[in-house]
């Protein structure tokens, strides 16, 4: 089966610009996650969707970050305006449904803000 697809793989932008990332989860997976992984740290959960509804976005900086999963399939994560500290790898993952099933991760998008 196809894995979790993310694009782009790399992005370099200037601070105060906006950027968007796209994720297509594994077909049939109801739960989708966006993580931020800063260099040298573990992934930090930004937002979790169950189908097209938000389960948890407590760690999403809502003044600049937004995410949507309108049809309960693919998802976009947007940053506007970007700050230097947003430089990180943004990972998308999906699970079939329940919490104890394996999460499948995409390759990630490496964002550099200069």
């Amino acid at each position, binding site marked *: 089966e196809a894995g979790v697809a993310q694009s782009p793989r790399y992005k370099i932008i200037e601070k105060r610009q906006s950027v968007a990332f796209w994720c297509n989860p594994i077909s049939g997976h109801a739960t989708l996650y966006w993580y931020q992984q800063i260099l040298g740290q*573990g992934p930090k*959960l930004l937002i979790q969707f169950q189908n097209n509804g938000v*389960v*948890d976005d407590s760690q999403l900086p809502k003044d600049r970050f937004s995410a949507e999963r309108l049809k309960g399939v693919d998802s976009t994560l947007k940053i506007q305006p970007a700050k230097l500290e947003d430089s990180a790898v943004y990972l998308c993952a999906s699970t079939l449904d329940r*919490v104890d099933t394996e999460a499948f991760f995409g390759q990630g998008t490496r964002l550099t803000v200069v």
Partner: protein
Amino acid sequence: AQSVTQLDSHVSVSEGTPVLLRCNYSSSYSPSLFWYVQHPNKGLQLLLKYTSAATLVKGINGFEAEFKKSETSFHLTKPSAHMSDAAEYFCVVSDPTGGFKTIFGAGTRLFVKA
């Protein structure tokens, strides 16, 4: 609230010797616990998971982990390290009282010497 602590940021072993990567968790309920591995420039891959069945969990590539509720630990072990095991390892906790959030530890970098 759940949390996970990986006790060592770096572990160095010689090829052929045992590997021990330590993880302690905090959870107010019966958690699901996972170990993921991240090789350079590759996506996260599940090694093994514990979901309230057998306390000794066997994973891929010869790794295993033991869930010890009394010690709130879930240490990862392997009898004999291989050069290809060199990577970043993440301990992950998820429980329903945390809204099924998946929380990553900070990671342990495993170095394997020839």
